[in-house]
């Protein structure tokens, strides 16, 4: 091979500037601050900002960039108060340090729950303001003027009277010697220059030219690649294996048994894959060898007919049902779903006697570091996590057990070189930690006027929280709050309501999946309220509207979406509209879907109108992009997504049998943002929940057939 430079470890760290973290990596903040007092090193007023004597502005971001735009929206919060030129900002991922802990999650650093901007809104603006005040004071001292007579603008301090100006870099050294002030005042919204504007994403250029480094691209000198053969049935174990043929594959270095299966370690991906294909393994399939989706459906359906643990009770639903003049009921089902990020899971580990460095796209730095330390037999502070770009996360890269990091450290213990474990797409689709399968039974009672007077909703599905470190926080009185979110807190005014839950222990690994419980509850609640409206002989939009009088933000987006979609206007022959509204992660979203169904029963979504009230707005274009993204994600689930089991094995494997919405399926999406000064809501997840019911309700309007099981089955809609 010629003309190929060997990318050494040092080069890698230098070229992968976004990965390395430069000088501050691993230093505690007190060390950073004391270093900053020398002239050659930058001004580091806090954990989030470094200003170099060369005027470089580095903003350290403690949230993982997985597409949701945090490498733009979080720097905007800092830059707004810091007064620097947007184009000069360089973003760096944070190392693991308590200074970067989530402001609302206790003692851990992580990204999820659509909380990034909400949870950093105060801290990052204060970080920027504090630095600015120090820089202004430093310049004022040099000029021997009152700091109040100076202002900061685009990376300069300016003395108002004399128009003297000095760059931040020039005063960085002096500013570094000052005590950070307490309680700096923050800007009034009317003075915002960045917040509220559609500022361009900082990560776009490197994502367009191919230089963005994802975990799968990370590389250190002498690195090997490993693939792992995992049991074909969850909870299965290796009974025996023969590695002779695998070891004979060129490039294969070793074959070792690890906790999660058998690892084939090779020079590169393809050798490892060929080696894995040549492995002969006898599996003990374990207790789940007879698991089937049909069997689970029967089990869940039976459970749904029995009372579960009460999650919410108001009024006297039992009595009122007896008195209701009309009662309607339905059963709904949604399947297990894989996250299927475009970048399959991977993790690079360089394990030494007294250190462990990890490069991976993770949403869960502290937990991953602690797990790695435990497995490696090191102290947490001996483990460094380099957070790369994430080629999609959707919750999968925040595994409560750090599964993909744990097994990579496990493999690294068996080799003397750095090793990167890569999952194939098949490994990813079959690899578990799915959104759970859910089965719901729901009953509504109407009085003689057609008003909704009673509601009973029984939910059946695995808890994603039980058995994880989050159990104490999220399981209350045997109710996993994430199982019932969006169901126990429905906004509709119903005087008598019961929501109960069964959480069967099945053994299939389950986890949060973009929008978590709402991905299922919004489908059930918003489909069924449509059924109730129909049973009451009322327009589904007007029916909802009337029941939302005490929930102005729900009502507001419902009205906005209906108005923008022209709810009552006519449509081309064969087209119909459906509507849904749902609150999640502090944001309120209504969507109107326009669909048609062809004679083969195939659903085509032509247009989606989305209205969002997420409170204060930081970056409208990112909000719109996240709505488009959530709609595609939810539409994929509505039209195609299902992980099913037969003889304990997952039946899907790749994008031919676990299909995604593609360009040909893409509806026209319009997003409208409600002007609001309410507290910030999330935007990464809330776009997902309303789309499945909006589409299903539109299918009903088009065909008269209710969709009560996802994904939508064309066979059931076929016209012969």
């Amino acid at each position, binding site marked *: 091979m010629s003309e*190929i430079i060997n990318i050494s470890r040092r080069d890698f760290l230098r070229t992968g500037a976004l990965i390395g973290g430069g000088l501050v990596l691993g230093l505690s903040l007190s060390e950073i601050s004391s270093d900053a007092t020398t002239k050659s090193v930058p001004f580091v007023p806090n954990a989030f900002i470094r200003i170099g004597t060369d005027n470089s502005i580095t903003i350290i971001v403690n949230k993982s960039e997985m597409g949701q735009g945090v490498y733009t929206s979080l720097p905007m919060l800092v830059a707004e108060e810091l007064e620097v030129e947007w184009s000069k900002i360089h973003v760096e991922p944070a190392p693991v340090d308590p200074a970067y802990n989530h402001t609302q999650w206790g003692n851990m650093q992580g990204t999820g729950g659509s909380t990034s901007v909400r949870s950093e809104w105060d801290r990052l603006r204060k970080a920027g303001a504090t630095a600015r005040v120090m820089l202004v004071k430093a310049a004022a001292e040099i000029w021997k003027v009152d700091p109040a007579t100076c202002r900061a603008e685009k990376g300069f301090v300016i003395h108002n009277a004399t128009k003297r100006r000095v760059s931040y870099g020039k005063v960085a050294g002096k500013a570094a010697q000052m005590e950070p002030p307490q309680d700096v005042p923050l800007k009034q919204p009317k003075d915002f220059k960045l917040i509220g504007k559609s500022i361009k994403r900082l990560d776009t250029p490197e994502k367009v*030219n191919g230089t963005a480094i994802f975990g799968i691209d990370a590389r250190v000198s002498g690195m090997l690649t490993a693939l792992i053969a995992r049991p074909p049935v969850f909870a299965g174990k290796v009974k025996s294996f023969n590695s002779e043929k695998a070891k004979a594959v060129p490039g294969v270095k070793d074959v070792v048994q690890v906790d999660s299966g058998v690892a084939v370690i090779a020079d590169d991906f393809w050798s490892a894959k060929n080696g894995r294909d040549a492995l002969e393994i006898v599996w003990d399939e374990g207790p789940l060898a007879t698991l089937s989706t049909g069997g689970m459906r029967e089990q869940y359906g039976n459970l749904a007919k029995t009372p579960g643990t009460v999650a919410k009770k108001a009024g006297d639903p039992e009595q009122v049902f007896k008195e209701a003049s009309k009662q309607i009921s339905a059963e709904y089902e949604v399947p297990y779903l894989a996250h299927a990020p475009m970048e399959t899971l991977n993790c690079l580990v360089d394990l030494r006697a007294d250190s462990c460095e990890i490069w991976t796209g993770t949403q869960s730095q502290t937990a991953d570091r602690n797990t790695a330390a435990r497995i490696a037999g090191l102290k947490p502070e001996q483990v460094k996590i380099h957070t790369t770009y994430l080629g999609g996360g959707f919750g999968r890269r925040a595994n409560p057990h750090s599964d993909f990091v744990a097994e990579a450290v496990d493999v690294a213990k068996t080799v003397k070189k750095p090793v990167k474990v890569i999952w194939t797409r098949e490994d990813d689709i079959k690899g578990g930690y799915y959104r759970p399968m859910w089965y719901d039974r729901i009953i509504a009672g109407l009085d003689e006027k057609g008003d909704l007077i009673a509601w009973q909703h029984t939910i059946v599905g695995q808890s994603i929280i039980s058995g994880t470190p989050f159990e104490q926080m999220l399981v209350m009185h045997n109710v996993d709050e994430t199982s019932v979110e969006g169901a126990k807190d429905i906004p509709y005014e119903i005087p008598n309501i019961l929501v109960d839950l069964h959480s069967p222990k099945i053994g299939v690994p389950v986890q949060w999946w973009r929008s978590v419980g709402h991905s299922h509850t919004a489908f059930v609640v918003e489909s069924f309220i449509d059924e109730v409206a129909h049973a009451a002989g009322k327009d589904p939009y007007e029916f909802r509207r009337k029941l939302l009088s005490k929930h102005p933000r729900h009502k507001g987006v419902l009205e906005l979406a209906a108005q923008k979609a022209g709810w009552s206007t006519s449509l081309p022959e064969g087209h119909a509209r459906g509507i849904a509204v749902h609150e999640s992660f502090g944001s309120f979203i209504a969507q109107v879907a326009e669909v048609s169904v062809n004679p083969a029963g195939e659903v085509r979504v032509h247009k989606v109108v989305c209205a969002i009230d997420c409170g204060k707005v930081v970056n409208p274009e990112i909000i719109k992009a996240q709505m488009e993204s959530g709609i595609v994600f939810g539409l994929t689930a509505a039209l195609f997504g299902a992980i099913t089991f037969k003889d304990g094995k997952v039946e899907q494997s*790749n994008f031919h049998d676990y299909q995604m919405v593609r360009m040909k399926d893409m509806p026209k999406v319009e997003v409208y943002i409600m002007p609001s000064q309410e507290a910030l809501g999330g935007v990464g997840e809330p776009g997902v929940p309303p789309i499945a019911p909006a589409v299903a309700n539109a299918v009903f309007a088009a065909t008269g057939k209710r969709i009560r099981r996802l994904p939508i089955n064309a066979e059931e809609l076929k016209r012969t």
Partner: protein
Amino acid sequence: MITLDVNKKKYEVDVSPDVPLLWVIRDHLLLTGTKYGCGMSLCGACTVHIDGKARRSCQVPVGEAQGKEITTIEGIPDNHPVKKAWLAEDVPQCGYCQPGQVMEAIVLLKNNPRPSDADIDNAMTGNICRCGTYQRIRSAIHQAASMMAKGVKQ
């Protein structure tokens, strides 16, 4: 030894001719802009140009690519209208599929300088974007088409 012509550079690689071009590009040439997504020609993340055609490098044995002109995302100049349009529209979210999308769109526009939405749907439907940037991809392609029609330098 396999000889490859990638981004107008010659490379010699000591690999078996049946190794997929994708893994030679990534693991041997260290050009990691070309991505692995499925290994079955189902997602388009690994799209490169071979003699001017968009090909899924996960399905091309490296032996077959010998003697052909291969271009990866790293070989596309920054002033290319498609890249500029992608920037103007802020298309990427996670960004993982975008090199493949850009490579596919470049070939679409070479063959069809003023594509309709339907043309775009047909040409781009093999490229999956899990983040759902399709609407922005569509408008970026239209924008690149107008730039090219106005003679913006490629």
